[in-house]
């Protein structure tokens, strides 16, 4: 299992075990991490699963593709390390990934 860490907006830390192939968003929902809404269920159609990737992980996680960039236009306070968590697939290389949840989604 790959370990993911979510840091909620109030600072609470959630350490979860994730299966490779699932998305970071799915693991947030499964573990009831507050502040990630995922209204469209992972279809890259809403921008409410927005997270900030920890600076040390941005290179490994990578940049959004065009479709995700289009949807990020609708997110709140988008930063260079912003990603839509439904578009980040869990894999061995992301073991220990840390993401932060924004103050609001949309």
């Amino acid at each position, binding site marked *: 299992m790959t370990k993911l860490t979510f840091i909620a907006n109030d600072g609470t830390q959630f350490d979860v075990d994730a299966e490779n192939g699932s998305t970071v968003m799915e693991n947030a929902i499964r573990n009831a991490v507050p502040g990630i809404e995922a209204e469209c269920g992972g279809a890259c159609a809403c921008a409410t699963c927005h997270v900030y990737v920890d600076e040390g992980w941005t290179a490994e996680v990578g940049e959004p593709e065009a479709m995700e960039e*289009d949807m990020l236009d609708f997110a709140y*306070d988008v930063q260079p390390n912003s990603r839509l968590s439904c578009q980040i697939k869990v894999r061995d290389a992301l073991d220990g990934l840390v993401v932060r949840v924004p103050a609001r989604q949309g």
Partner: protein
Amino acid sequence: MTDTIKTDVLIVGAGPVGLFAVFELGLFDMKCHLIDILDRPGGQCAELYPEKPIYDIPGWPLITAQGLVDKLLEQIHPFKPEFTFNRMVSSLEKLEDGSFRVTTDENEVFEAKVVVIAAGGGSFQPKRPPIPGIEAYEGKSVFYSVRRMEEFRGHDLVIVGGGDSALDWTLNLQPVAKSVTLVHRRPEFRAAPDSVNKMFAMQEMKELNFQVGQVSGLTGADGQLSSATIKGPDGDVEVPCTRMLPFFGLTMKLGPIAEWGLNLHENLIPVDTEKFQTSVPGIFAIGDINWYPGKLKLILSGFHEVALMAQAAKRIVSPGERIVFQYTTSSTSLQKKLGVHD
């Protein structure tokens, strides 16, 4: 004051299920008038995913969403449905004789014996951008659509967005407004390349401003804007403005339907599975907006619901008239209505 439009059936929503309702109701000689907030028929299919292939429409291994809408329009054409677009139904009241009066948000009035709610996920309304405090300015200096361009004359205007709406209005309002500043998170746009090129050309000529960044705050008083704070890559920029047009896409909202006195179940309208009638006799609900045990939000489910609803609607519109069950394959009278032999 416009005249009241009278019809047999008033259909709220012109998505695929509302459109197919015209067919089944038409086979029973009922005239329909459809009202939709969008500027064209098709609902979510036309607005959200026109190019996407749908694989579960019976008889169509693959059909695009817009393709389905086009086919439905062809199918209902013989029944000459009437459409009123760009309107939301605001009120629905039952009259003394049991029929219904429906009023739109532009005060157009309709009367019908039967109302069919085919509102899908709710009406498409502009999405509110995630800008703190924006609600205080809505309707006074922040607007989500342009009804009359003249209303922006002489104003310092900020337009936010990266799609066709934002770019089109930037170009259209530049000659009218005192100044136009387009704000977008990044220098790449979703809008048509031609519009984007024109915008950059005007920026070169200093005819408008383009600010890369996100609106992080608004300043003003009593609903009147005085400036917007843009958080850019190099820090905050304060842009004086008296009008703002944010274009952040559309979202679906239940809206006035919640106020019509119908029983609701988690923002859906419960119906029976024999007639798909709501808690108010004469008002039916079909498609994604309804709920019943086992309900699936599938277009094909909506089509089934339409067929049963039409039988019940006929009994209300033509009480006492004998309803004969017929097949379109063998009934010459049905085929005549469809114009098969013309």
